[in-house]
């Protein structure tokens, strides 16, 4: 019990000027305030071992060609989230142009990922600058289970507003930065996703393997993430609907790649930072 109190105290310190609100249903376990990726390598770095429900999570890629991989990773995380939340709709905001460039979300494919397309609401924006408005409006309404936003970084102030809205409404917000610019953000966790070679598919050894990603957690407020940490390579286990660590042993392609390219990259490459972090 003392440990839990200490954790709460730390959480309070971490959030500084925000009042820490214990859930109004009395004591609740970890599962009630967040959801887990199911992979220890990721969860251990997160505060209290979970992705908080009441926070903004920011995802980005190193290069814009890695955007599909990031989309897939976030959708897989969303699938994990939906395992814990059975009611409510998810609103997905993006600009009209973004849909054209990166493809329109496709129902049969979403269904194959384990997501229910009927629970998704799509907002296609004529103007990119309506993105922050649409996301905040959705959060403030308190009527959706989660909010996804996709587009160029929205700026620090807007991200701060979004995270406050997340905290007050206890709704998670996932932001996908699909440009390769990196801007300051008030997000509770910041991720950088790159595609990786997954283990072969047992049903079809020559075909494409399991979806896999190299995941760097650049920041997890209240957790122990550090930009210098090596990324963990995880794959999506579509039998158990959870993430698993890819072992380099027995995965020839991955082992080769690990040799040819350094796995540890500076998380803040020179010249890529949009504003002071």
């Amino acid at each position, binding site marked *: 019990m003392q440990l839990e109190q200490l954790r709460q105290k730390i959480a309070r310190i971490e959030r500084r000027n925000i009042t820490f609100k214990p859930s109004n249903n009395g004591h609740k376990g970890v599962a009630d305030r967040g959801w887990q990726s199911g992979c220890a390598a990721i969860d251990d770095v997160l505060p209290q071992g979970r992705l908080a429900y009441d926070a903004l999570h920011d995802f980005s890629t190193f290069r814009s*060609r*890695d955007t*599909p*991989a990031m*989309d*897939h*990773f976030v*959708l897989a995380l969303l699938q994990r989230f939906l395992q814990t939340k059975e*009611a*409510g*709709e998810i609103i997905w905001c993006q600009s*009209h142009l973004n*849909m*054209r460039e*990166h*493809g*329109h*979300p*496709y*129902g*049969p*494919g*979403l*269904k*194959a990922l384990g997501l*229910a*397309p*009927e629970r*998704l*609401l*799509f*907002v*296609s*924006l*004529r103007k990119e600058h*309506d993105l922050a*408005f*649409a996301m905040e*409006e*959705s959060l403030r*309404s*308190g*009527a*959706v289970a989660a909010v996804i936003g996709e587009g160029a970084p929205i700026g620090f102030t807007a991200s701060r507003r979004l995270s406050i809205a997340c905290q007050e409404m206890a709704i998670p917000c996932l932001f996908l930065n699909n440009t390769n610019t990196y801007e300051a953000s008030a997000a509770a966790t910041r991720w950088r996703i*790159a*595609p*990786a*070679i*997954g283990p*072969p598919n047992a049903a*079809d050894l*020559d*075909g*494409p*393997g399991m*979806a*896999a*990603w190299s995941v760097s957690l650049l920041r997890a407020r209240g957790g122990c993430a550090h930009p210098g940490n090596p990324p963990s390579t995880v794959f999506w286990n579509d039998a158990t609907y959870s993430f698993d660590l890819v072992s380099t042993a027995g995965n020839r*392609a991955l082992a080769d*790649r690990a040799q040819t390219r350094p796995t540890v990259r500076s998380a803040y490459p020179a010249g890529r930072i949009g504003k002071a972090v």
Partner: protein
Amino acid sequence: MLVHSGVKGTRITATNRMAEKAGAVIGQMLNDARAACPEIHVEQGNEEADRDYLTRLGHWGMRYSPMVAIDGIDGLLVDIAGCDHLFGGEQALITDFMLRVEAIGLSARAGLADTPGAAWALARYGRGQDLIAPPNQSLEATIDLPIEAMRLEEKVLLLLRRLGLKQIDQLHTIPRAALERRFRSREAASSVQLRLDQLVGFIREPLVPLKEVAPYREVLSCAEPAIEAAAIAMALDHLLLRLEHRLECEGLGARALTLTACHSDGGYDGVSIVLGRAAREPDYIARLFSERLEGINPGFGIDLFILSADRVEKMSEAQQSLAANSLPKDVIPLIDRLMNRLGVEHITRLAPVASHVPERAQRSVPAIGGQVMGGQAPAWEIMVSRPFRLFERPELIETIAEVPDGPPLRFVWRRLTRKIIRSRGPERIAPEWWREIGNGGQGSYDNRQSLLLRTNARDYYEVEDEEGTRYWLFRAGLYGLTRNGDAPQWFIHGLFG
């Protein structure tokens, strides 16, 4: 003075009082008028602009009654039944109207009667100040007017004049059968009868309203013209309260609302909102309007607001207090907010369609009310190898393949070369023959069918590049069977991540 240049020369189409004093008459040749008065000022007429302006004026005229119709090129017909008491009687209404129109800078005449025909006659040919016909005395009020006030064709008028019938009373006293015999054509005869009946009110003459009359409508006039946004918001609140009261009495809620602002100088502007579900709560509706109010152009001041519920529905009386705590919050208010700010068609859901052609297997439907009504809605099929993002249009890629009909080894998409290490396929998807029958092909029906299917079939491959990104590619058509003998082209259709 305005003129119109036609094939038979330039004629005068409109004059002002000065021009009339100088002797100009509508329909006269411009040269004749110039000869009489050389210093007359002439402008080219613009019929289209006139019509636009008349329409705008018609909307402005809805301050007097929701039922406004355009009459020809220079008139408005307003049905003020049940509206006059709001202005303090018929005389007061006419006075108010004339004052406002003069303030705009127009010269106008107004007539008022039980029937549109009589009012038209009074407005255009009435003499003196008193242009209001007392109830049930349409004929008496117009009896001494010339027959031009009857809205008849020119050739009918000509004949009547030749017969010496110059006033309505002369026409009215002749027995109908006798009058009919004078005309060579039956149509001309019946048109005279019809106009007479319409004038008296034996035959009802319905107006074609400029705008469909909303059944629920509230009007607020301002003592001082409103310009500021705060004043507009206040007016809206006031109107919403009144509208709510009316709707509540009848158990209705609004699905679409329009706020129209009439300018003191004869213009108008309006904003409309739509609601996902019938509602009448003033706070809720005001919030939907709030951002749109900035878009209202106040002109030189708004002196009248009209709030109309364009669409109403029965509202189910939900037990608000019980539902509020236990259920998750309703998503419809959010959709309403987003729809009215971002546009109705921008908030969508995906609906499955029973089709095996990938781009037809889903469609975007409006977030509210887009569900299939009645019948069996198809369910989402669980299919392997379907991307989660699909391009609206497949994008052409350049490929290098090992064997002609195998999956590519490399491909260039968006100027980046991607090396494929693993692939799965082909999954052959033929077009739906019941949709695409009949272009080209000379053989029997079956042969034509099979050829068409093979030339338009797509072979889909799910491929993974050396970095782990996965794509959905297809080859359009089969080798050796394309229309002009070229190698088939490759496209990227979707992304797996």
